[in-house]
């Protein structure tokens, strides 16, 4: 099942790469489509075992819906953090307290933890330094508001966690 979904994704990417439709003549390039099948098959045979765990979430439309919802949600927090960091930078005193805090997440799968870590990194002001598989993240924070683990977790992690659980778990 995993391999089939991987095959479909790879084939779609191949079609986007070569674009096998000639607009002037209106013909489909069957040779490219054929070679694409072979190429996607080769990749699946070579790297089929190297898939992230539980990647069959690609087939559930509900998860796609939540992923679409996540985009504006994430953009909102990203914008907010941007303004905050801009305020910190433009402030004459530069009231920053940089430091690394340890936060915990209840997400379990690797993909979800990675998505969470990358969301934190993409948000200005916070940057994931390291992530363990048991859900411990080490986050560099430009302005440490809460040194305690639990409060920092609530501030940084919780806003993304719920959505990511709906998408990936």
């Amino acid at each position, binding site marked *: 099942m995993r391999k089939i979904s*991987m095959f479909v994704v*790879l084939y779609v*990417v*191949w079609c986007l*790469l*070569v674009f096998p439709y000639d607009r002037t003549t209106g013909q489909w*390039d069957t*040779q*490219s489509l054929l*070679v694409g099948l072979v*190429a*996607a098959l*080769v*990749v*699946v045979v*070579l*790297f089929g*075992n*190297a*898939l*992230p765990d539980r990647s069959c979430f690609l087939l559930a439309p509900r998860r796609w819906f939540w992923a679409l919802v996540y985009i504006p949600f994430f953009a909102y927090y990203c914008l907010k953090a941007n303004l905050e960091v801009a305020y910190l930078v433009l402030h004459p005193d530069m009231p920053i307290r940089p430091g690394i805090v340890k936060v915990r997440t209840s997400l379990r799968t*690797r*993909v979800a*933890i*990675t998505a969470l*870590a*990358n969301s934190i990194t993409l948000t200005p002001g916070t940057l*994931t330094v*390291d*992530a*363990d*598989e048991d859900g411990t993240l080490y986050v560099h924070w430009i302005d440490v508001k809460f040194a305690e683990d639990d409060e920092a977790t609530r501030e940084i992690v919780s806003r993304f966690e719920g959505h990511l659980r709906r998408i990936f778990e």
Partner: protein
Amino acid sequence: MKETSTIVKTISRCVVGFIFLYGLYIVCYGHLTPGGGFTGGVILASAFVLEMLAWGKEEALKSLPFRLAKPFDSAGALAFLVLGLLGLLLGGDFFVNVIQKAYPGKPFSLFNAGIIPLCNIAIAIKVCASLFLVILVLSVLRVAAGGGTEDDLTTQEEE
């Protein structure tokens, strides 16, 4: 040695297949768009190298075992030579594009240009296998330099 973090591992798993597919695209379309056997071969090798750096030697060897990589290295070079000799036998000169002379394809289509795509594929196999081997061997010596002579490559080879 410290393990790479979960982020690197997961992202490399997601990306490595696409890198390999892009390399195949570069190889197959070398006669129509920029690219070709060398570039594509290096991209293919870099996919394996990424897997090796993120997941360790054992995982990469699962995808492309050492005793498979060595024959691939030789087979790529040999296939290229055979394609040249084909021209010598059928066309009279070394590297004559016999297939293009016999069956000229439609311009700008994929199955075209005779032996050129085949040569591209042969070179890509050769470059990919040999670069992967070099980096594998380099990393193995790094382990061996620390303590003792650890040589799982030779044991695997002699299996």
